[in-house]
């Protein structure tokens, strides 16, 4: 296990370094380079040259990359062009809100997807399996912005049960105080991810049912219900947890769309607005945080899975 932890952590470290190299190069590929990012759009060319000289941005790229890394390690992600605020402080403000929304819609999706996937596996190729699979697939095939529109028309216009917009507020408690405004964003996020999870559970349960340990359990007289809900589900869930780690960028992509449609004040909306306004320091800061979170998330998931399932330790990706 120790060897696995060290190896897997080393892999993650390499990926983090690669991610910083990519963001560094993108920052430099932009017109004006990092000086624009720090001085803002109104800086003159002389100011930029002066800035480059005093800050060492006329030095060779490898040395500059090193100082970029040092700045990152000090939590300095640059300053927004538009919002007159440091990227780091923007992220501190916005990340918890996106975590809240994404965690809730992912939780809803999982709570529905796990029992559904198991039920489908047990009734595979029967009418119920086909009908539910198809319904879930329609949810997957619907672009989130179209789904959101339909939901708003039905549940906010035709029958005004829910507000069409997410609550606004600076604190988490302010957002939760108007929970009804969170319902449509949560549902939109959940519907589009539900299919991925339920299909995963369905096929994973089917795969597990063909394993030798199931045959052994059956031979020992363990009830079918116990085999499925205790033995098989435990194996399926551990691999589902591992999948979640890798799923973070997809969830973030969903957050960008959902937050911008419902005007929810999270990282997704921040990213969306930054993209509209070419606010590169913000874009790069968000990307860096999401990427590192993905690497750390999948590392944590893999280690958790390895702790539970010894077979994983052998098969290092």
């Amino acid at each position, binding site marked *: 296990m120790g060897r696995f932890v060290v190896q897997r952590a080393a892999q993650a470290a390499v990926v983090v370094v690669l991610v910083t190299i990519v963001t560094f190069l993108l920052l430099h590929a932009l017109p004006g380079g990092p000086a624009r990012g720090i001085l803002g759009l109104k800086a003159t060319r002389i100011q930029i040259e002066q800035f480059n000289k005093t800050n060492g941005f006329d030095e060779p790229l490898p040395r500059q990359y090193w100082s970029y890394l040092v700045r990152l390690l000090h939590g300095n992600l640059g300053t927004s062009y538009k919002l007159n605020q440091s990227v780091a402080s923007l992220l501190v403000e916005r990340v918890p809100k996106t975590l809240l929304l994404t965690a809730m819609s992912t939780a809803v999706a999982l709570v529905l997807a796990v029992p559904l996937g198991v039920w489908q596996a047990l009734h595979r190729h029967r009418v119920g399996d086909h009908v539910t699979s198809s319904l879930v697939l329609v949810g997957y095939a619907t672009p989130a912005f*179209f789904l959101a529109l339909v939901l708003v028309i039905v549940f906010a216009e035709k029958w005004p049960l829910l507000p069409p917009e997410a609550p606004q507020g600076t604190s988490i408690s302010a957002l939760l105080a108007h929970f009804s405004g969170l319902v449509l964003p949560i549902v939109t996020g959940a519907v589009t991810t539900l299919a991925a999870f339920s299909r995963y559970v369905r096929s994973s349960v089917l795969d597990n049912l063909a394993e030798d340990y199931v045959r052994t359990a059956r031979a020992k007289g363990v009830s079918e219900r116990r085999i499925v809900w205790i033995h098989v589900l435990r194996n399926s869930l551990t691999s589902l947890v591992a999948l979640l780690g890798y799923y973070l960028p997809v969830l973030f992509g969903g957050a960008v769309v959902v937050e911008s449609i419902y005007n929810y004040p999270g990282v997704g909306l921040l990213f969306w607005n930054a993209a509209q306004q070419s606010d590169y320091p913000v874009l790069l800061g968000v990307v860096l945080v*999401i990427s590192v979170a993905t690497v750390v998330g999948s590392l944590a998931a893999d280690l958790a899975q390895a702790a539970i399932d010894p077979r994983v330790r052998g098969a290092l990706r």
Partner: protein
Amino acid sequence: MSAATDSVYRRFLRHRLGVAGLVVIVLLFGFCFLGPVVYHTNQVQTNILAANLAPGVQGHPLGTTDVGFDELGRLMVGGRSSLEIGLAAGLLATAIGTIWGSVAGYAGGWLDSVLMRIVDTGIAIPALFLLLVAGTIVRPTVGVLIVIIGVVSWLVPARLVRAESLTLANREYVLTMKALGGGSARAIGRHIVPNAIGTVVVNATFQVADAILLVAYVSFLGLGVPFPGTDWGGMLSNGISYTYDGYWWMIVPPGVAIILVVFAFNVIGDALRDAFELRLGSR
């Protein structure tokens, strides 16, 4: 047709939903590519005098758009770009992923590590961001979108094929071929890829479905096919601005078309997976 492909074919035909999906795809392709031959409309010049017409008015069966394009004809033109981009980008992603994954899995050792860490890095960086950056540097055309979407989507097939290739590389027939002096290129081209073909084909159908969805999102972000061209996602996000005017005919047809085509490719993929008797964990 060999016995193996024959039985895959028969098993596919037994899958009714998959066959229905295939029929839908054929019909949609016919509609988009042959439709304009029969149904002539002007999809280049705008006509403000005929804007926002309801279905049926002035001989427009599905009405007209905000700048006076015939909606039915637009659906054909837009579908053509959506299907072209989706199909080509999905296949491009599958091709890159297959080569990358089979080389990594077959080679093993340091080359495998290097190749897979690059894949991990690509997975960690949100595709949406790469699309945005690319969109600011190049003007999107159908060709450019194919390349961009293909290049951001090859990572999942690379992982799947690599896992497959890892087990195939140690099969006796591959080891025998190597012992007889066969080269790596021959091993990958003649043994690894053909034996992983089920995984590759099934994944390709899902890739096409995802690419068509991704095109819709790209258009929603405003980086889609430029005017006067369009795609279903572009039509949809354009129509959404007129929701509160009640112009449903600008929203429902492209929305339904996207759902239909993505759904159809997914059920075809499911049917193929059953036909190849695959166990693809993640999909």
